[in-house]
C-alpha cells in the first residue's frame, strides 16, 4: 500500500489535484490511498497516524508554511518523499533542513497533469522497495520489514545478517548471499564484496582510493572488493539516473 498525502490551503485546488494524482497513480497500481489536508498541522497529525510515503505539499500556506512542515517532518526522521507545490519556477532550500524530491508549479505553461505524471513515474521506482518481507531469528522473533529499511546484508558462514534501519541488532537467518543477490538486485541492491550486499538507497559515498563505501545513515564504512568496483560504479550511476 502506497500512502499519499496532499496538503494545500486552497480547497478547490486540493480536490482537483487529488483527482490528477489519483488518475496518474492508477496507471501503475491500484494499491494506494490518498489523504488530503487543508493545513500543515492537520497533515502532521495525520502523518503521525498513517506515516505517508509521499507528500505533496503547498509552500504558501498561512501559519505553518510548507517549508516549516517539511522541517518538522525531517526532524522526526521521517523519510517520506516530499514534493512541493508552488507558484514559482524556482525552489531554493537549505539541504540540512530537508531534501525535497521535486516540485510542481501551479499556473505555468506546463499542464499540471504532465508534471505529476513525470514525478509519479520516478516515485514508482522508489516505491519498488516499499514492500514488506518477513524476517525471523531467535532474538527479535518474527518481524515484517520494509525492503526500503534494509541497510545492507552481510554473510556469515551459513548465515546472513540483515542490518535494518533503527534496529540495533542485525537479524540473523540461514541463507546464502549469492541466492539473495538474485532476489535483491531488482530492488536496487548491489554487491560490493563477497560478504556484503548494500541497498543503493543508503550508499552515500564510494571511496575509490581506499576501496570503501559509506552508508551515511548509520555512518558505517564497508570494504569494497576491487573485483566488484566496476559493477558498483555502474549500478550506482544507473540508480542515480533512475532516481534524480
Amino acid at each position, binding site marked *: 500500500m502506497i500512502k499519499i498525502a496532499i496538503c494545500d490551503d486552497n480547497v478547490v485546488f486540493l480536490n482537483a489535484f487529488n483527482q490528477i494524482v489519483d488518475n496518474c497513480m492508477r496507471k501503475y497500481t491500484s494499491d494506494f490511498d490518498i489523504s488530503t489536508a487543508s493545513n500543515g498541522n492537520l497533515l502532521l497529525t495525520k502523518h503521525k497516524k498513517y506515516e505517508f510515503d509521499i507528500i505533496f505539499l503547498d509552500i504558501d500556506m498561512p501559519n505553518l508554511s510548507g517549508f516549516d512542515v517539511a522541517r518538522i517532518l525531517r526532524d522526526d526522521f521521517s523519510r517520506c518523499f516530499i514534493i512541493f507545490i508552488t507558484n514559482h519556477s524556482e*525552489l*531554493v532550500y537549505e*539541504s540540512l533542513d530537508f531534501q525535497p524530491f521535486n516540485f510542481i508549479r501551479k499556473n505555468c505553461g506546463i499542464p499540471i497533469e504532465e508534471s505529476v505524471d513525470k514525478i509519479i513515474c520516478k516515485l514508482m521506482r522508489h516505491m519498488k522497495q516499499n514492500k514488506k518481507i518477513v524476517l525471523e531469528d531467535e532474538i527479535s522473533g518474527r518481524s515484517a520489514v520494509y525492503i526500503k529499511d534494509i541497510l545492507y546484508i552481510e554473510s556469515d558462514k551459513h548465515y546472513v545478517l540483515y542490518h535494518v534501519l533503527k534496529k540495533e541488532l542485525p537479524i540473523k537467518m540461514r541463507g546464502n548471499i549469492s541466492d539473495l543477490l538474485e532476489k535483491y538486485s531488482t530492488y536496487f541492491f548491489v554487491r560490493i564484496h563477497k560478504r556484503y550486499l548494500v541497498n543503493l538507497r543508503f550508499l552515500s559515498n564510494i571511496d575509490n582510493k581506499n576501496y570503501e563505501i559509506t552508508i551515511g545513515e548509520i555512518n558505517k564504512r564497508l570494504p569494497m572488493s576491487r573485483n566488484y568496483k566496476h559493477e558498483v560504479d555502474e549500478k550506482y*550511476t544507473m540508480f542515480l539516473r533512475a532516481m*534524480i
Partner: protein
Amino acid sequence: MNRVLWIVFEIIINIFQGFAFCFYSYKYLSNKGDKGFIKSSGVLFSFLLASVITFFNYVTFFEHLWALLYSGVIFLYAFFKLRGSIVNKILSSIIPILIMIISSAFISNFYSVLFGMTLEEILSQNSFPRFIAILSTQIMIVYLLMISLKLFKKNENNSLNLKEGMLIFSVLLISIIISTFLNLISLQIHSIDERYFIVLSFLGIVIINILVFYIVVDLSKMNTAIRENEVLKLKQEYSQQYITSANSQYEVIKKLRHDFKNNMAVVNELIQQKNNEKALEYTKEYLDELSETEPLIKTNNDIVNAIINSKLSAAKTYGINVICMCVTDFSDINDVDLCSLLSNILDNAITACKNCQIDSKRIFINIISDEYKYVFCVKNSIPESVLQHNPDLITTKSDKDNHGMGVKIIRSIAAKYDGKVDYYEEDKEFCCSVILKRKL
C-alpha cells in the same frame, strides 16, 4: 691533539648539516599550526642524518652519489613525520643535498684555485685552507637554503601545480647529474685554468636553477592572477546584471500595484454585469501575466546566483521554460570551479535547447547535496536522440578550436573533486549529471 680537534670539528659540522637539512625540510613542508620541529621528531632524524653523513665521510672523502642516501634519510623524515604532497616531500629532501653538493664542490674548487693547491689536498689535509673551505661551505649552504626557502616556501595562494613542480624538479635533477660529473672531472685535473672553468660552470648551474625557479613561479603567479581576474570580472558583470534585474523587478511590481486597482475594478464590473465568462477569461490572462515575472534564485553563493539567474534570463529570451531546484550552500567547492562548471553545463543545455524545433522547450536544473557530495543535474528537452548519433558529444559548431571545450572542462572539474560525469537520455530529455565529492 690536533687530530682529535679535527675529528671533533668534523663531527660538529656533520651534526650542524644534519640539523640544517632536516630543519629545511620541516620549514619547507610545515604550515601554521603544525607540530613544532622538536615534536615532529626533527631532532631524532637530524642526529640520524648526522651519523649517516659521518659514516660516509669515513668511507669516501668526497660524497658524490652517496648524497642520494642523505636525501633518503630526509625523505623518510618528511614522509613519516610531515604533511604535504609527495612531490613536495621529494623536493624538500633533494634540494638541500643538491645545495650541499654544489656549494662544497664550488667552494673547494674555488679555494684550490685560490691557494694553488690540488683538490685532494684541500679535501684531505688537515690544514688551514681546509678549515676555511669547510666553514665557508657551511655558510654558503645556509645562505642558499635560506634563499631557496624564500623561493620555494609553499603557501596556499601560489602553490605550484604538479606540472610546474615537475619542471623545476627535472632541472634540479639534471643539475645534480651535471655537478656530480663536474666533481669527478675536477678531481682529475691539475691546471688552474681548467679549474676556473669548473668554478664558473658551478656558478652557472646555480644561476640557471635560480632563474628557472623564478620564471616558473612568476608564470604560475601570473596565471593565477589572470584566472582570479576573470572570476572577479565575471562576478562584477553578474552583480551588475543582478542590480539591473532587481530594478526591473521593482518596476514590474510598481506597475502591478498600479494596475491592480484598475484590474479589480474591471473584474468587479464584469461580475456585476453577470458576465462570468468574460471575468474568468480576464482573471486568467492576468494570472498568466503575473507568473511571467522573471524568476530569481537566491542562494548563499553569489556566483551561483549570478550564473543561474543570468542563464535563466538568457533561456527565457529563447522561449525556454526553466525550472530550477537548488540547495543554498555551496561550501567545499572553489568559486572558479563552480563558475565554470555551472556556466558550461547551462550553456550546453541552452544551446541544445534553443535551436531545436519542438513545441515546449524546457530546462530542468536540480542541484542537490548531502554530507558527502553535490549532484548537479541539468536536463533539457531534445527532439531526437543525441547520444545515438554523437556518443562522444563532439561539438557540432564549425569553429572547433573555440567550441567543444565545455564537455572537457566539466569532466576535468569532476575529476578534480573525485567525482563523475554522466550523460544520458530519458523520455526525450538529455541529462547531464555531475557529482562532486565534498572534502571529507
